[in-house]
């Protein structure tokens, strides 16, 4: 199938890292063929979804402040349609976990994740959420949130700059854009 359909404004496809994962994912999704009409309908839906991902900010520490910078005027997350930060998990599409997750917080993080409605995505922002970061040897720190719940995008940095966060969000947008709800259902002929 044509991979060029996954378009993000201003950044050409070739300049993204890790295109292989996306291609593999797309191949997997399209293995059974795509219905022409429903496939196009999917594209329209995904165009809308990917440009209005509403994030829930699970900010525990420093990375949360960098998210605030990203949301403010200078970096302006509204360019990506993501300025509508929801504080209720029921209304959010995307959870941005920004900051260290510790033992006491782990059950609460999982509970908030469980409360989100499908389809839902998780972005792990910062070294602490990826592996425990500088606190990896601590007795009270969870060594990576992927031990608790599935993660779509990891954004490294301590804390990551707003630009890196945007890059991670654009990677997520690409992932959302190739998803199919209607077009690839296996039908019995």
């Amino acid at each position, binding site marked *: 199938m044509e991979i060029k359909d996954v378009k993000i404004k201003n950044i050409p496809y070739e300049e993204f890292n890790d295109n292989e994962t996306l291609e593999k994912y797309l191949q997997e999704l399209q293995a059974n063929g795509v219905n022409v009409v429903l496939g196009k309908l999917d594209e329209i839906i995904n165009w809308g979804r990917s440009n209005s991902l509403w994030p829930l*900010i*699970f*900010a*525990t*520490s*420093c990375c*949360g*402040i*960098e998210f*605030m*910078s990203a949301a*403010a*005027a*200078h970096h302006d997350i509204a360019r990506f349609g993501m300025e509508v*930060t929801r*504080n209720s998990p029921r209304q959010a599409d995307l959870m941005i976990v920004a*900051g*260290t997750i*510790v*033992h*006491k*917080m*782990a*059950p*609460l993080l*999982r*509970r*908030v994740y469980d409360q989100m409605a499908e389809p839902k995505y998780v972005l792990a922002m910062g070294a602490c959420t990826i592996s425990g970061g*500088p*606190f990896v*040897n*601590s*007795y*009270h*720190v*969870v060594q990576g949130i992927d*031990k*608790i719940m599935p993660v779509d995008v990891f954004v490294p940095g*301590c*804390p990551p*700059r707003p630009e890196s966060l945007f890059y991670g969000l654009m990677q997520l947008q690409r992932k959302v854009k190739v998803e199919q709800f209607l077009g690839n259902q296996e039908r019995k002929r």
Partner: protein
Amino acid sequence: METIKKLVLDTVPGALIEEKQKLTITVDPQKLHLLASTLRTNSELPFDFLVQLTGVDRGDELGVNYLLCNSGDLSKEIVLKTGTSDRDNPLLYSVADLYETAHFNEREVYALLGIRFINNPDMRKFLLNVGWVGYPLRKDYNPDPHLNPVSLESHDIIDKAPRIRELEDGSLVEEVGNVFEDDDYIINIGPQHPSTHGVMHFRTSLDGEVVKKIDVHSGYIHRGIEKLSESMMYPQMLHLTDRLDYLSANINRHGLCMCIENAAGIEVPLRAQYIRTIMDELNRISSHLLAWATHTNDLGAVTAFIYGMREREILLDIFEKTCGGRLIINQNVVGGVMFDLYPGFRQDVTAFIVYMRKQLKEYNRFFSHNVIALGRMINVGLLKKEDAVSHGVTGPSGRGSGWSCDIRKHMPYALYDQVEFDEVIRYECDSYARYRNRLDEIEQSLHIIEQLIDSIPGGEICAKTKAVIRLPEGEFFSRVEAARGEFGVFIESRGDKFPYRVKFRSPSLSLVSAIPLICKNEKISDFIGIGGSMDYVIPDIDR
């Protein structure tokens, strides 16, 4: 201080008095409360401010160090030490009836070292879960992750507080008290709440929409920094302080570097002192700008939030050009600073000063006299001076209660004794005083930078230090004025390249400990506004 020594010996004849970095007095646990209350109430020099309460595992005994000072003159300090050799059931006497700030600190010592305090009305573990196995700061702690696995099961919060009380005849009884009354209506604010400025959990009982009582639960971002530091060499542990109170990252790190330099006798070059002072003040401005932005956001002014963040971004650019970091600055090292100033630094900072003065006027014009803002801040969240001292509320919030508690004035470090600035003090004790204090402090910080920026001398930016820094045996303190109040560092060294015990005095812990007091009988909606005016940072509390 001679009269104080005499007073100590009169009160407790067997006390051991040592002249170390600070005047240190070691007493029996039974005499500690008597001595502390005598020192607190004596008319000559009352030691009414408990700066640090540090639990230490000394090997042969579990002990506690108290750093006390006089609230009128912060440079008059005294250290009390006590300890018990019973490791199975260590009991010491509480000073929570003398110093309000001891409540949370003693609960923290219980969670991390297992020492329980007699007569403290609430002896729940503060930072860790109730069922945590072992006491992390003890030297014989077993760090096996199988003992304390990551659990995804939520536990109910039981509002029962165990305590130990001493009866008149000297016998001890263990009791369980209720935190709330049976028919209280309780709501949870936090831990995942956008307006608590972090992951704090306030269990709030309400009468209608009026707050009756707040119970603070902490530890949702407890990262074990103090324990981690014990296994790191001195230069290695520097980066952890940046991540305590990340909004005044540079000042925290300055405090730790100063403590190590004083202990090891390292002379910091003059140019490094200039850079440190200027960067500290820029950091303070960026922190106050963020505090202002989030406070106004809490009160409903979303545009103001965008304004504050806009000005802050200019400072972040300056930080980035200097040392590559935006939020976490990583500039100070032992002996000086890591990076020199970039060529256009002076122009950038001077331009910022002019711009910021203009913006401050604008802030005042469109928010400080807004009728809604005034209604939500004036006479709301009253914190009297005695309470501020007792809770240890320092920084702009403490000075909003009329307490002169600026470390830069009382115990000048770096170049603060060579520059001229006013300590901003207000006497209204309400949210509005704290709010105005921050804006005025930005002006004072600009004034300090102005005096230094044109006369930065040339020369080295970092003193030559040994590759492995060893501190001599002893106990070392340093205190700096961070953006939220007094940040303190305590290092106990046994002559090794690793510290034996590190303790960070968090300004935000005191701010939060005062929240239940000042929010009582206020509206629940004002609780958020008061929290914004106190401006605490949670990772600083949990460490």
